[in-house]
């Protein structure tokens, strides 16, 4: 009895320790997390970033790294191995969690980290064959000795950093999730590329297009999806002629009609993922040398998708942004050339309806015979749950997913499972790192063209400019050679005529060098005019950004960096200028309140710029989306996905024929006119804005309504940058809107002394406890650019800060 109080206290103490060391839901284990020495407090950066001289095992020779005032590392190595070893080490040091998260996601392993909530996403990743694709790529990389060395050196660098970590040094996110980093390997680098391919080249509307064709008929397709907007200005100027015959392909007599399917759309890509790039020739610039500019638009997150770095070693001196998890520079420049990328929306992903012999799925019908499948067992480990086992069946097309059937008209009851096989460029053997390896070292146009031949996916418009004065743009990637319309709908998996029959030869890819107009540009619009001999697809960005850039560049001369900067931040809305005047004519003012008339007047006075302090862009956008909705709502009321017309196509249609058949709401008795819809939708827009932002005031500023938020990668509260008062719009050159926008803005002025400027919404460090976590966001928001410090030789010791006196440069001297 006498030990009872002691025992109770002891048990209570142990219980306390257990409670504090356990993760409750999303709440991290509070004991280790709050520990001032080892918990989150350890990530609160409080030491000044300072010089260092140290051993780094694994290096072959000594390396110097100079960190500039934005903490961008400039790596000076004496061989390729050490260069990429350091890139791996530094990226891991600044962004380890991001590197791991992206590759866990690509591999379909997120459930391992967070539990059952992400099992479905993981399963889709497995069914899309992401790891299969990465394995194909890695096999290809190993065939090219220099690439394989880089992969290994980079991995070793990442691991050197991981191995140096004690658990209290783990980045914040590891502590929040109560996990530990795992060793890096080259497959993860390949997975990262597959993740980019999924972000940029997984767009497809095969199922919805098939359904739309079956539901509305071919005339509808022609009207809304085949024709281009009359202001479309393709990437390769219309004047370009093609002096080759296409490689012929055999095509089926009639188009296969697939079963109507609901399908799955597991990886939706929001509009706003696009990009701009351009280069102007020396004839149009004040300096007489070309200027190149690029702003890739992506999901904006903290930390940023990009990592800025200078890489210097014998045979290479390049500066730009790299992806976390991959060696080399993706967008940047060297002493002779500059390059940048925008996405190509060509169709490199097709679904095939598969006929299996039976539910065993051991054989499928193709080319008049039963062919064997292969199976891949996918084990999805689930944190706090049972491992899920999924068998993914592979045909020669690719991995198979089961999709749900959809019902159309009286054909109710189509309940049998439908199987779609995925044919996707991401499953092809490829070695993109080799392309960047060569591009980073390119000296002229020919080197650039040669580098591009090694790049397959995700296809990009590679813009180029050189000190020699060349400008060029290649629509570059591996493109299947398709018959007209092939893969636009779900394909017949049994008929070889629907297989990808080969590739467009690289030299036939759309491209242009030194065009007469003195500039090249791209903004994700159609690659070419219709006379280009090959079929590449129809899901390109609306015409607006591309047209605006070309309009502006055509009329600009004596161009300087400041002109390019202004164009990067250009908020003009072609969309509004095209349709708003008509909308203002249609709206019936007699039923409006005085305050609504006042709002209308502000629209009439608007100059079509999506600038932050204007209220008109908020009203226009809300009005347009209500109008769009009200036109489509009755026709598009189906329980299977249908493909909706693009914004610019509907605008064109409304301008040509305001009362075309879709305007009338078929579910009502009377006949609605465009005047009715315009008025109703205007009132709705007014009500919506009033509900969200209060009465007509500065709170309606587009700067707020744009809803520009940059969340943390995991959407964790407190770790993002929210409510950034910004201008822009998805149809403007400055394509900021919501959580998408310019993820890196760069201008490079070629010349004997290359000058460059850049900014991205984030900072070098991925640590939320570092001042460098979000230090560039304000400059990014206001359109400022930093001059990039591009060293042609290692900086002098006199530039290096001693103690805290000067913040110019911090030097790390590392040796093996």
């Amino acid at each position, binding site marked *: *009895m*006498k*030990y009872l*109080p*002691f025992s109770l*206290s*002891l048990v*209570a*103490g142990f219980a*306390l*320790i257990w409670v*504090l*060391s356990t993760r409750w839901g999303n709440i991290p284990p*509070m*004991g*280790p997390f*709050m*520990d*001032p*020495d*080892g*918990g*989150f*407090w350890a*990530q*609160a*950066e*409080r030491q000044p970033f300072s010089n260092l001289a140290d051993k780094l095992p694994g290096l072959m020779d000594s390396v110097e790294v100079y960190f500039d005032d934005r903490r961008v590392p400039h790596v000076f190595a004496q061989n390729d191995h050490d260069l990429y070893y350091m890139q791996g080490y530094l990226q891991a040091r600044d962004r380890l969690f991001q590197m791991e998260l992206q590759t866990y996601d690509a591999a379909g392993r997120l459930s391992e980290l967070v539990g059952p909530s992400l099992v479905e996403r993981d399963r889709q990743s497995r069914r899309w064959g992401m790891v299969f694709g990465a394995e194909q790529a890695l096999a290809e990389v190993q065939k090219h000795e220099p690439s394989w060395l880089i992969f290994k050196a980079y991995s070793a660098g990442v691991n050197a950093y991981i191995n140096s970590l004690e658990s209290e040094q783990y980045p*914040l996110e590891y502590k929040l999730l109560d996990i530990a980093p795992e060793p890096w390997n080259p497959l993860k680098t390949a997975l990262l590329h597959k993740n980019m391919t999924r972000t940029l080249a997984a767009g497809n509307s095969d199922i919805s297009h098939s359904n739309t064709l079956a539901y509305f008929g071919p005339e509808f397709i022609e009207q809304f999806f085949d024709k281009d907007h009359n202001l479309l200005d393709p990437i390769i100027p219309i004047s370009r002629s093609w002096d080759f015959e296409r490689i012929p392909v055999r095509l089926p007599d009639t188009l296969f009609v697939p079963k109507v399917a609901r399908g799955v759309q597991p990886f939706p890509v929001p509009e706003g993922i696009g990009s701009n790039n351009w280069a102007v020739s020396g004839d149009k610039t004040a300096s007489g040398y070309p200027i190149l500019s690029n702003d890739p638009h992506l999901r904006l997150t903290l930390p940023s998708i990009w990592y800025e770095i200078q890489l210097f070693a014998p045979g290479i001196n390049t500066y730009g942004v790299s992806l976390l998890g991959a060696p080399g520079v993706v967008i940047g420049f060297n002493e002779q050339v500059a390059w940048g990328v925008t996405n190509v929306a060509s169709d490199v992903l097709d679904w095939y309806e598969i006929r299996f012999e039976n539910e065993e799925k051991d054989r499928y019908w193709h080319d008049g015979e039963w062919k064997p499948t292969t199976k891949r067992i996918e084990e999805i480990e689930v944190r706090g749950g049972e491992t899920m086992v999924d068998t993914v069946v592979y045909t020669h097309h690719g991995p198979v997913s089961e999709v749900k059937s959809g019902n159309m008209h009286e054909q109710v009851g189509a309940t049998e499972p439908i199987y779609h096989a995925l044919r996707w460029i991401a499953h092809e053997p490829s070695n993109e790192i080799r392309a960047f390896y060569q591009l980073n070292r390119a000296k002229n146009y020919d080197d650039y063209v040669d580098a591009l031949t090694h790049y397959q996916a995700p296809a990009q418009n590679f813009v180029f400019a050189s000190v020699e004065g060349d400008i060029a743009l290649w629509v570059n990637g591996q493109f299947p050679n398709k018959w007209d319309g092939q893969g636009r709908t779900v394909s017949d998996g049994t008929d070889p005529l629907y297989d990808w029959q080969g590739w467009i030869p690289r030299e036939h890819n759309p491209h242009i060098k030194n065009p007469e107009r003195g500039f090249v540009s791209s903004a994700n619009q159609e690659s070419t005019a219709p006379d280009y001999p090959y079929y590449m697809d129809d899901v390109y960005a609306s015409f607006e950004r591309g047209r605006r850039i070309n309009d502006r560049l055509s009329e600009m001369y004596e161009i300087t960096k400041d002109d390019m900067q202004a164009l990067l931040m250009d908020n003009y809305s072609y969309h509004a200028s095209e349709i708003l005047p008509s909308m203002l004519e249609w709206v019936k003012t007699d039923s409006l309140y005085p305050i609504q008339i006042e709002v209308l007047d502000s629209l009439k006075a608007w100059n079509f710029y999506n600038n932050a302090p204007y209220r008109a862009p908020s009203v226009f956008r809300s009005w347009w989306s209500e109008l769009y909705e009200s036109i489509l709502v009755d026709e598009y009321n189906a329980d299977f996905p249908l493909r909706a017309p693009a914004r610019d196509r509907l605008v064109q249609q409304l301008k040509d024929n305001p009362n075309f058949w879709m305007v009338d709401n078929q579910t009502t008795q009377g006949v609605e006119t465009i005047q009715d819809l315009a008025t109703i939708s205007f009132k709705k827009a007014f009500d919506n804005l009033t509900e969200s932002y209060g009465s007509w005031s500065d709170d309606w500023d587009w700067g707020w309504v744009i809803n520009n938020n940059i969340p943390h990668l995991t959407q*964790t*509260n*407190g*770790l993002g940058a929210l409510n950034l008062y910004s201008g822009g719009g998805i149809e403007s050159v400055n394509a900021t809107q919501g959580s998408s926008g310019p993820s890196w803005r760069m201008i490079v002025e070629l010349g004997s002394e290359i000058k460059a400027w850049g900014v991205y919404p984030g900072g070098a460090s991925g640590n*939320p*406890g*570092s*001042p460098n*976590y979000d230090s560039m966001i304000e400059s990014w928001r206001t359109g400022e650019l930093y001059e990039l410090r591009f060293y042609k030789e290692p900086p002098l010791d006199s530039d290096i800060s001693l103690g805290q006196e000067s913040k110019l440069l911090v030097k790390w001297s590392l040796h093996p």
Partner: protein
Amino acid sequence: MIILFLLIAGNAFILNLVLPWWSVVLPGLFFGYRMHETPIRAFGIGFLAVFLAWGVHSLYIHIASDGILSARIAELFGLMQDWVLIVITAVIGGILSGFATLTSSLLAQSRNKKY
């Protein structure tokens, strides 16, 4: 009493630098057994010692880092004020040490009892 307080606070701080978070219970366990305090006082002294050790430590980090991270973590936990985070940190440390000191003082007391 002051001595016990200083011994626990100082040793907890030092141990925490080299050992994991739960090591802050060790000084309380060790010194609480030797210093004969009543259970309530033992708990109070143990609590206060690490409350202050962790509180001051985290307050120092908060100030030295301009509160950048504490503001974010406070928002993450839905706290209105950053300083609450420091209090929570201190309380967690304090409670751990309080129970440790209490436990060992109760053990010492029990061993001295006849029945």
